[in-house]
């Protein structure tokens, strides 16, 4: 369960204040598939980073499974991101010169998992995203859809209980998008919480709850399932 209470974020743009997220409260129930929609600049990415421990809010707090994450030390937040949270971004955030295997493995290295235990877990994660046969390919030689699946594999390899995906289908064609949506749904069915940012209403309709943002506030929260 992720609880955001009255979170706000202020940025300074030259000498003008911007509040991309403004006194926003939300309960993200465990094991459900959420989508966040809204116009460009409505604060979706900023909110996702705040919920995921990547960006400290100016005001308010974020409580995940009973823990106020921004009251933790910087190292504790980092460990928390590594063990509890998986991120998937529009531009993949992969190391292009590493192989598929190495890109997924790195999340386990950070977690301090022994080398001999890593192989099996990386392979299982790659199987789950249907990339078992590409593990020795360099990421720079993959297609966009394949890269996005590598980043999903990396997000799940540590057994994260929450997956945040910021427009994972933004650079993909229809077929690859469907694939990514199917894989995210599979994660949700396996008991994980998934929070997805999307510009596509069709994709949003595949999720359980749709949250609509405008000017940093929630203007609609629709439960589909």
């Amino acid at each position, binding site marked *: 369960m992720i609880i955001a209470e009255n979170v706000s974020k202020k940025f300074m743009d030259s000498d003008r204040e911007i509040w991309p997220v403004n006194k926003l409260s939300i309960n993200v129930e465990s094991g459900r598939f959420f989508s966040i929609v809204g116009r460009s600049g409505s604060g979706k990415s900023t909110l996702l980073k705040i919920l995921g421990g*990547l960006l400290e809010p100016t005001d308010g707090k974020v409580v995940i499974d009973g823990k106020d994450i921004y009251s933790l030390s*910087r*190292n504790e937040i*980092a*460990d*928390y*991101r*590594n*063990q509890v*949270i998986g*991120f998937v971004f529009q531009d993949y*955030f*992969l*190391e292009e*010169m*590493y192989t598929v295997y*190495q890109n997924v493995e*790195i*999340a386990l*290295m*950070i*977690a*301090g998992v*022994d*080398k001999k235990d890593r192989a099996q877990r990386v392979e299982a994660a790659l199987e789950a995203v249907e990339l078992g046969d590409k593990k020795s390919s360099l990421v720079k030689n993959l297609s966009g859809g394949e890269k996005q699946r590598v980043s999903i594999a*990396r997000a799940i390899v540590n057994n994260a209980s929450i997956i945040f995906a910021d427009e994972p289908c933004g650079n993909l064609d229809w077929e690859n998008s469907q694939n990514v949506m199917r894989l995210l749904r599979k994660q949700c069915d396996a008991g994980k919480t998934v929070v997805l940012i999307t510009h596509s209403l069709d994709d949003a309709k595949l999720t359980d709850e749709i949250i609509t943002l405008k000017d940093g506030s929630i203007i609609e929260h629709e439960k589909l399932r």
Partner: protein
Amino acid sequence: MKNSDKLRLVFREYRFGCLENIISVGLQALIFTIVILLFTVSFELDDVLSGYMAPMYSHGYGFTLFGYSQDDIPELEKQGFRDIEFYENGDAYGYRDNLSDIWFIKILAIMDGRDIWNSELDEIVNYIFFGQITFLALGVVMFIIMLNNISNSISMRLMLREKYLRMMSGLGCRKSILRSIFFMVFAFRSILAILVAVAAVAVCVDKINAYLHRIMLISLGFSCFSPAYIIGIGLISIVLIFFTFERQWRARA
């Protein structure tokens, strides 16, 4: 993160900017070589010159010692003087076998209101003094140029790897671990450069020694070219590189 994994990531970093790595190591090795040679020449100049003039001073180098008394004989002997004789007017005369550290000894004497003097040798002592100072200063200047070069190379590399650094942070890698990985990336390059430079200097010293031996039948002791000296230069360099790295690392954040 396990230490073996940190090392694994350090060595993976060398895959990026291969040419830049080679140029950086080469350039650092070249400048290190020049710096060590300049320091070596600076330290050894007194011995080279006294070795060169030794045939003309087969009895040793005589100096008039002003302002000393009989009580100072042990101190003077420690400084390398022998056959010290005192005259009625209080002045003394003593010999030394070489001119090692002669201006240092002279400065110590002058600071105590005394003097060590030889009309014939005074000019040579001055040459040694300015020669050593000049070579030392050149060495320091080259060293600063090299640090500046390393600093630029660190800043460029951190910029090149900005996206990777953000990715690692996003995946929950602690900042301190990332910092130690990148410090090792730069430190290993410099250590390799120092090793290459030490080998190059060893070859140069060998060649210089052979040459000097042929033309004036002396060979340099190169006492400073010892393991302790090399480890010292290495440690000082790594510490300075650490501070350079820290500055760039903070500038980035």
